[in-house]
Structures are given as C-alpha cells and as structure tokens.
C-alpha cells in the first residue's frame, strides 16, 4: 500500500512540474491556460489521492479535497480565459484558427 501510494504521488509531482514548465515556455495566454489547467489538475489530483492511499484512514478527507480541486480549477481558469478574450489579448502569430470570431460572425448573421 505504501509503495503504490508513493508511486502515484511521484507521478503527480512530475505532472505538476511539467505544468510549471508549460506555463513558462508556451507563447500565448491561451496556450498557457491549457498547460496550467490540464497538467496541474491531473497532477494535484494524483498527488492528493496518493497521499490518501499512503494513509488509508485519511482517505475520506483527501477525496473531498481532490473532488473540490477537480470542480473549481477548470471553472476559475475558464473565467480567466473568457476575461482575457473579452479584454482583447491577441493570439500568437502562429495560431491558425479562431473559433470565437467565427461564432461572433455567426451570431451577427442570425
């Protein structure tokens, strides 16, 4: 049980470090949002569940924390992405498609 929990926690910490690397390296706010949401949500989930498996009598509270992160982290990052889109942050010059513009044209046509 101890070994399984340690392995799961290790995988989670590696995902957290890769999320930080993605936030540092990627060229654009929206790309950084993607790295900062997906990697850190999976990494935090695996780390917290791994700690719960290491100590089996802590499992209920760690499950509550993990479920809370799994719900709130995409919500807050979606709010940030919508806010940066509304405040006019440009896309990077290598991006090829912008679905939000197409959606606005579609809404004007209706």
């Amino acid at each position: 049980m101890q070994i399984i929990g340690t392995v799961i926690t290790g995988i989670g910490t590696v995902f957290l470090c890769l999320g930080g690397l993605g936030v540092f390296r990627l060229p654009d706010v929206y790309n950084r949002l993607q790295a900062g949401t997906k990697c850190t949500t999976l990494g935090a989930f695996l780390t917290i569940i791994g700690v719960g498996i290491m100590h089996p009598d802590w499992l209920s509270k760690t499950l509550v924390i993990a479920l809370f992160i799994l719900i709130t982290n995409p919500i807050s990052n979606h709010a940030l992405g919508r806010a940066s889109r509304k405040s006019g942050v440009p896309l990077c010059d290598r991006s090829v498609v912008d679905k939000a513009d197409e959606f606005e044209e579609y809404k004007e046509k209706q």
Partner: protein
Amino acid sequence: MVDFVFLIIITSGVVLCLLRMLKGPAAPDRAVAVDTIATITTALLVLLGSIFERYVYLDVALVYAVLTFIGSVAIARFLEKGI
C-alpha cells in the same frame, strides 16, 4: 528521502511559474501564473501534511483551495470590465 525529492520537484514548478509571473507582458499572464501556483501549492500542503504526519493539517489545504478560487474569480471579473 523520497519525500524530499518530491518537495524539490514541486518547488521547481513553483519557480518556473514565478519566472513567468515576472516576465509576463500583461496582467492576464500574471493572473494565470498565480492561479497555477495556487493549485500547485494546494498539492504541496497535502504532501507536507503527509510528511509531518498530522491529520489536522489537511484542513488548511481545504480552506486554501476554497479561498484561492474566490480570489481568481474576483480578478477575472475585474478583467472582464464589471465586478
């Protein structure tokens, strides 16, 4: 010993996000970096509770997760022009 390696890996992720926070051209970049740091820190608090072997310390992680969510949503509402 393994726990110490985990702490070093998580702290290097915090350092990379902080470099982006210093470098980022506008306010939304910095908000994204600080939100990522908040999520990484919640996992770090749970791992430290496991290292110190105290059950009470998990409450701090729960409160932390709730309140940083409120802060991020407040910053996002400001950037969207209207609080």
